[in-house]
Each structure stands twice: as structure tokens, then as C-alpha cells.
């Protein structure tokens, strides 16, 4: 019973923070809401006894990805007012699409005679059960192919990001290592003779 209550509380927080992500006026607040929703979903995973995934979600997403996000948002200084300019003009269209989609989903959920089947409750595992080990086994045996593909996908993402950003353009503040190394003392250091100043 306590578990169910816990689940609904967490779900409510998760949905509220997800709404916060898309409604917050300040992009930094949106990122912080996203952090909150990640933390809440990791607790939801804990309820499902997926401890390893829960920890990894916090470590990787909250610890690394979201910090990077925050840096980017703060450095880019996004002009929210400019982004919101077309909002009211297209809002009605979005509202219509959202209403149609919601109506369809609700129709299927409610008007179907048999309704939705409930998911079976999970049985708790014994204390010495290691889901990290199970995850590793599944990842490196059953899903090895998908794992390798994901590796190639990451390689592709690196190549694509570099292709799109690395180019010569005026005003580029990149370092030229060979020029840095080739610099001589005379180019940079100027010794100036000055008269010593006396306290009077």
C-alpha cells in the first residue's frame, strides 16, 4: 500500500516537473525541472528494483549531461522573447492537433468494451540477486548486435558534430599550436627600464 502511494506521489511530481520543462519562461529553470524529472524517474526505477539503471540515470544524465546542458544554456543566452514571437500565431493549430490526439487516445481507452489490461505486478527478487550482472549478460550476449550498432551511432554523432562545427571562418578564436610553439621570447616579452619610485 505504501509502495502504491509512493508511486503515485512520484508520478505526480514527474508529470508536474515535465510540464515545468516546457512551460518555464527561464531556460535555466526548464533545465532544472528536467533534472527533477530525471531524479524522480530514477526513484521510480528503484521501486522496480532496477537499482543499477537508477544510479546510472542520476550519474550520467543528472551528473554529466544536464550540467553540460546548463553550461550551454547559460553560455548561449537564448532570447526567449524572440523564440516566443510566433507562439500565439500557431497556438491554435497546436491546440487543435493536441485536442484531436487526446480525444482519440481517450476514446480508445474508455469506449473500448474490454478496456485496458492491467500490467501484472512484479514479484520481488531475493536479496542476493544482482541486476547489474543480469544487465551486463543481456547487453553482451542477447543484445550484442544492438550494442555494437549503438557504438557506431556514437561514432557517427562525433563525426557529424565535427563536420558541422569545424571550419575556417573569419573571427575564429581557435589556437594554432605550431604558431604557439614557434613563438620566440623577443616576440612576446619586452623589458622596460623604469626609474624606481620613492616614497616621499
Amino acid at each position, binding site marked *: 500500500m505504501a509502495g502504491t502511494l509512493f508511486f503515485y506521489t512520484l508520478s505526480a511530481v514527474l508529470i508536474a516537473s515535465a510540464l515545468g520543462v516546457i512551460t518555464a519562461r527561464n531556460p535555466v529553470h526548464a533545465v532544472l525541472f528536467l533534472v527533477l524529472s530525471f531524479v524522480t524517474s530514477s526513484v521510480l526505477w528503484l521501486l522496480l528494483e532496477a537499482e543499477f539503471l537508477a544510479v546510472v540515470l542520476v550519474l550520467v544524465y543528472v551528473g554529466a549531461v544536464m550540467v553540460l546542458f546548463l553550461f550551454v544554456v547559460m553560455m548561449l543566452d537564448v532570447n526567449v522573447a524572440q523564440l516566443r514571437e510566433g507562439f500565439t500565431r500557431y497556438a491554435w493549430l497546436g491546440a487543435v492537433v493536441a485536442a484531436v490526439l487526446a480525444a482519440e487516445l481517450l476514446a*480508445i481507452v474508455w469506449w473500448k468494451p474490454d478496456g485496458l*489490461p492491467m500490467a501484472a505486478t512484479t514479484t520481488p527478487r531475493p536479496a542476493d540477486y544482482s541486476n547489474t550482472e543480469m544487465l551486463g549478460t543481456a547487453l553482451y550476449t542477447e543484445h*550484442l*548486435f544492438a550494442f*555494437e550498432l549503438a557504438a*557506431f551511432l556514437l561514432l557517427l554523432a562525433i563525426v557529424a558534430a565535427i*563536420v*558541422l562545427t569545424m*571550419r575556417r571562418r573569419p573571427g575564429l578564436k581557435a589556437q594554432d599550436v605550431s604558431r604557439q610553439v614557434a613563438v620566440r621570447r623577443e616576440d612576446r616579452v619586452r623589458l622596460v627600464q623604469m626609474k624606481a619610485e620613492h616614497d616621499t
Partner: protein
Amino acid sequence: MLPTEFAPAFPETVLGLGICLVLLVDLYLPARWRDVTYLLALVTLAATAMAVSDIGLSGTTLALGGSFVADPLASFLKLFVLAALATVFVYSRAYLQDSTYNKGEYYLLGLFAALGILVMISGASLLTLYLGLEMQALALYAMVAFNRDSPVAAEAAMKYFVLGAIASGCLLYGISLLYGVTGTVQLAEIAQALRAGGADDAVTLVAVAFVVVGIAFKFGAVPFHMWVPDVYEGAPVSVTLLVGTVPKVGAFALALRVLVEGLGETGVTWEPMLGVLAVLSLGIGNIVAIVQTNLRRMLAYSTIAHVGFILLGFAAGSREGIEAALFYTIVYVIMAAGAFGIVILLGRQGDDADELDDLRGLSQRSPWFALVMLLLMVSMIGVPPLAGFYAKWWVLAALLDAGQLWLAIAGVLFSVVGAFYYLRVVKLMYFDSPAGEAPLRQGAALRLTLSVNGLLVLALGVFPEGLIELCARALG
């Protein structure tokens, strides 16, 4: 050499290693040696094709934990994709040599896209299908934005990326619901679970709808076609050529694997959906293409119309319909490659020459390539004895056999509408006087491949039996 488990995926392994090789070699090459990258990419494609033909058109093997399937259809489609991509590379090289962004990454990202498509073709689980789809999409997003100095390209890439991400989200949502219903991501097991019951379950219906949205976006079917004209017009011509050809085979494979092999049991649900999408695509594609003045935009809308025909094949809901859709996809890719090859041929340094007016008097500037373009356009209309005729005829025959009279009538009507803008191209080429005397792009490889491409449309139209039989065998 390889663990036996990986043996059916040997072509993908070869391609993956080739990608790493091209990546490393290109890194150390000076810009004037770009042709080495090009040749290496072609060698990689050839080696992959040899690995595929080693597996051949025999037997079905499920490998790698049931996430990978090697069957006759996979081998056939893979060989075709590799050949089509090699053609695309030959055309693109002529274009890139004159452009300011002749980077080796064009070939590299092209190979990545091919890897994604190959994985999709052999995908036997929703997980690998999705990973292959993302790999192909990610490579194409980056390629569309290749010309960083062009705001039009940036806008096109942005639209493509954002809409593509939404479509991927829809597809993933559908996949997650399917996993919830059946408890597995493997297509064979999903089909089995749905046969046992739950095929007309509420959740399954929602899942099917979301999956169809994802697939329709990848095809560029109406109403998920918004990105097509902008990407075709905004991207560099070499990228438009790539986006307009090979990925359609990937989309076909995705539709076939997921809808027919995995969700075959729910055919009653998705066949009408595809029917609606098909008629909308035929209508919007053919009618809006009429008012275009830009050749690339016109070809974009013509693509949407052709996608409508491919979807009609699926909507027929019969084995024959799917064979017809396969045949149509193959013929479409050949025709589109040729048409964009002509666009590349017309262009010159700093001027893409992609307006319809640039085609004026082509018959006087180059009688031979005007004839090639004539063959391509007439084939796209669907006039015998060209390949496009058999493609349309087979789809319509399958629809009539399945009793879908209205879909067939819509197909015929909109094809007649479409004939107008294809014939206008012919009129511009043959009955108008040339606007300028700028020479066509040189390059023996480009001209030779383009000639073969045009003649192939004629040859497949006169002797379609070989390809028809191959399609039937691949699916049989």
C-alpha cells in the same frame, strides 16, 4: 575468422570496418587527394557487395539473438542499395569537385547512412530496426547542413532534424506500447503473440497508429511530407540526390519488416491507414508539383506522389501488392537517381541550374542527355514500354485483385494529373530555345553512368520479367 554467430552479418561488419578505414585515411589526406577517399568508399561498397553475394539468395537465417535476419529479400535489397549508392557517389563526385565544400565526410556519412539502411533491411527486432533508422537519419541530417554558408541549407536541416526527431519519438512510443502488449521486441515473437490474441486490443491499435506515423514520415507521405520540398531544395544537389534515392529502400524495408512481418495480424488496422496516406500523397504530390518552378521542388512533390503509389501496394494487403511495392521502390530509385543526375549535369561551378527554365532547349545543347531525361520523365508518367509503366500497372493490378477499386481509380486519376508537369519538362527541353550556351558538366564517369541509368529505365521496361521474377523470389 568471425564467430559463427556474426557470420550472417558479415556484410555489415565489412562495411563498418570500411567506414573506420575511410575515416582514418581521409583524416590524413590533403584536400587535393580527395579522390582517394572517393575510390576507397567505392571499394568499401564493392567489398560489402561481395560479402552480400557470398550469402546469396538462399535460405533464411535468424542470428544474433534473433535480432538479425538474413533472407533472400535482405540480400537482394542490400545489393541494390550498394549499387545505387555507388551510382550516387559517381554523380556526387562530379558535383563536389566544383563546389567549395568538397569534403571527404560526404562519402563517409554516405557510408554511415548505407550501414544504417543495411541494418534496417536485416532488422528482425524493433531495437535493431530503430538503431538502423537513427543511424541513417543522423547521417542525412548532417549531410543536409553540409553547406554551412547557406542559410537555406541550415533551415532545411533544422526542419528535417526537428520533424525527424518528432517522428522518431512517435515510432519509439509505438514500439514501447508494442513491447508492453507482447513483452518482446523481436518481430517473429510479436507476430506470434498477436496471433495468439490481442491483435484488436485497444493498446495495439494505438501502437500501430504511432508506428505508421513514424514510417510515413520516413517515406515522406502526406501529411508527414513537410520536410521533403525544403530538404530537396535547400540541401546541396549531391545530398538531395542521396536523400531522394537510397533511404526510400530503407523505408520500404522498415514498412515491410514492421507492418507485414511483425504486425501482419493487425493488417485490418493499418491497411486503411496506408490507403488514406497513399491517396493524400498522390493528390497533394501531383497537384502541388504542377505549380513549381524549381526542378528540385518539382521532383520533391513527384517523390511524394510516387511514395503514394508504393503505399498503395502495401494498402492492397496481399502478397502481390507487396511484390508490386518492392518493384515500384526499385524502379523509383533508379528513375530518381537519373533525374537528379541530370540536375547535376546541368549545373556548373557556383550555379546549380535547378530551375525548370534551365532545361530550356536541352535537346539542342545535348541531344543525348535530353533523350535520357525524356526517358526518365516518360517513365515517371508511366508510359509503356518504360519501367515506370510496369511499376504502376502491377500496383493497380494488385489493388484490383484485392477488390480495392476506389484506391485503383484514385491512382489512375492522379497519375493523369501528374503527366502534366512531366510533359512540361519534355516541352521545355524539345520545343523551347536554350536560354544560355553554358556547357554541360564534363566527366566521363558521370556521363557514362547517367547514360546507363537512362537506358536501364528503358531496358527494365522492355524486359521487366527478370526484375519481376527477382522481386517475387526475394519475397517468396
